[in-house]
């Protein structure tokens, strides 16, 4: 939902807004291509190497927690030891700040 509704729409609109003048993107420089490819592939190789050679000990646990919505909801808004109400509220404040900031930055003069 977040992504399909919010982010993608946002991007599409912003690209439309900023694309103007019919400008063509210049060709990618060769050095940049090679550097990017090299770094990417090298990094991927390293990370995959580490990941695949590491022995993850998967716990075969007798009693997993039921992950239904009720549990998630309780955990998200619970104020006991493992409750996430504080980060929840903080994120909402952050969203508020982002809205305000975005409005401020992009308002018309």
């Amino acid at each position, binding site marked *: 939902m977040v992504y399909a509704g919010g982010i993608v729409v946002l991007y599409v609109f912003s690209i439309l807004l900023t694309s103007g003048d019919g400008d063509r993107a210049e060709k990618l420089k060769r050095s*940049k291509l090679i*550097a*990017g490819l090299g*770094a990417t592939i*090298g*990094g991927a190789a*390293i990370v995959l190497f*580490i990941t695949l050679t590491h022995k993850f000990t998967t716990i075969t646990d007798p009693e997993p927690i039921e992950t239904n919505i009720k549990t998630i909801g309780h955990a998200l808004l619970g104020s006991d030891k493992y409750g996430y109400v504080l980060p929840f509220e903080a994120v909402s404040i952050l969203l508020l700040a982002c809205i305000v900031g975005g409005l401020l930055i992009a308002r018309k003069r």
Partner: protein
Amino acid sequence: MILILPMLSFLILGIGGKWFKPVDAGRLGTLSLSLVTLLSYLTAWFYFTAPRTAEGTYATLMPYNFTWLPFTETLHFDLGIMLDPISVMMLVVISTVSLMVHLYSFSYMKGEKGFQRYYAFLSLFTMSMLGLVVATNIFQMYLFWELVGVSSYLLIGFYYTKASAVAASKKAFIVTRFADLGFLIGILLYGYYGGTFSFTPDAMSLVTGGAVMLPLALGLMFVGGAGKSAMFPLHIWLPDAMEGPTPVSALIHAATMVVAGVYLVARMFPLFIAYAPDVLHIIGWVGAFTAFFAASIACVQTDIKRVLAFSTISQIGFMIVALGVCTSMNPHEGGLGYMASMFHLFTHAMFKALLFLGAGSIIHAVHSNEMSAMGGLRKYMPITHITFLIACLAIAGIPPFSGFFSKDEILAACFEYSPIMGWVMTIIAAMTAFYMFRLYYGIFWGKENKELHDAHTPHESPLAMTFPLMFLAAITCVAGFIPFGTLVSSNGEAYHIHLDATVAITSVVIAIISISLATWIYMRPTQPVADMLGKRFARLHNAASHRFYIDEVYQFVTHKIIFRCISTPIAWFDRHVVDGFFDFLAWGTHATSDEIRDLQSGQVQQYAFVFLLGTLALIVTLLLTF
């Protein structure tokens, strides 16, 4: 106290000289120096009248001695004051001559620019020389040795606007410095192998192999002394050093600095006898050759001061020979030369200073150094005439003047050592008498230079100049009778001088023969015999008056060989390699910083790229180490 006073005077005059009126500067310098002279006389009096020690020698006193740089227990640089017979004698000599020079300069240098500077340098020089003679160990002596070199450089180049004076002072400094290199190496060798820097041999702890290296060390030290005392071939600076003011020549070249080398050998005398008697004899022969060489050049010089300069070189050769012919410490069997040398040093200082000051008086009167401007001056300058004559008689060795006694002792010592040496020295003494009287007649008798005298009639010098002349002349007359041997002798015992009749009569007779020869040749207004001799031996005459081309040899060696082959590559190396290295460093830094600057491009993608690379590198490093 004796040392501090001239040092203070130098500092005050040197720094505050501009604000003094010239007269005040002169008075301050002279006053401090008269105090110094008084103090040194008192010291000498107390020292020599104090009772002797058990062996009958004078005690070697060390009123101050503090360790400056300790290396091991026995090896340390000291600074202090040592009084023993020769150092006290030297104190008397130096302060007397210096005082006379101060008085004399009062009127000689009147009206010269830099009067205060002159007196400041004179004080510096006196202080350094005094410090040299009271040194307790060889390193302190070296320290003051260098100081003396510096102050003589300053004094010789006093007329710094004259190019020849500047060149002469540079030459003096460089030649003596070069000799001092040998001196320093000798000191270091001596300190290492001998284990101590002091002068007494019983305080030594020889390193193995020391006994072999010690002659080398002592020989090298003598090289240093040879430079300062103008032995062949390091004598080239002395005639050129006559560019300085004449009182300076009197102080430095007659009495004090040039005898520093002789003093050095005398100081190291016990060590020489104990460890390197052969070196001592070689030194003696070097001295003899120098004496002969200088005397032959002096016979044909026409500049008064040059004649006196070569005469100085010759007389110092005498002193060195006297030291060189000693074979033991006992004055009765072979150690006579030590006492004779010191005695000659004393008397020579007096009459040579007298000669130089007299020459200065003459130069002041006729305003020229050349003998061609003089002649017949005896009518105009009676006091100078008489004193000059006294000094000439003394240097020729005519009794009862002091020169006779001291020269006689030297000849006696030489004959004791080997007859050849004795006859060589006698011949040189004859030459000395000859050229001195040639000079005397050339100045005071002979043909007058009428045109010059009509333009500016020569007159007798003022009292400030004639007083020192008379004082020194008086000393010259009586100094012969001082029982020197009782005061200074090689092992400290009292030694009564007895005149060896054969030697004395021989020397006097030969001297009188030379004087009459000179009289016959030079006394009349015209000199037909001299001219004929000059034509017959023209080549020899030419060579001698060019000082046997030694200067040209030096010039050739330094310019063609040293400059071209050694200095130029070194200069090239310095400019290109050394400077090139630093230029390269600078260029490298510049280029590197240019490259690094590009890292801050402002491009976000580049920053992220570098960031990623860094992280990957970190991960890889961690991977590899674990």
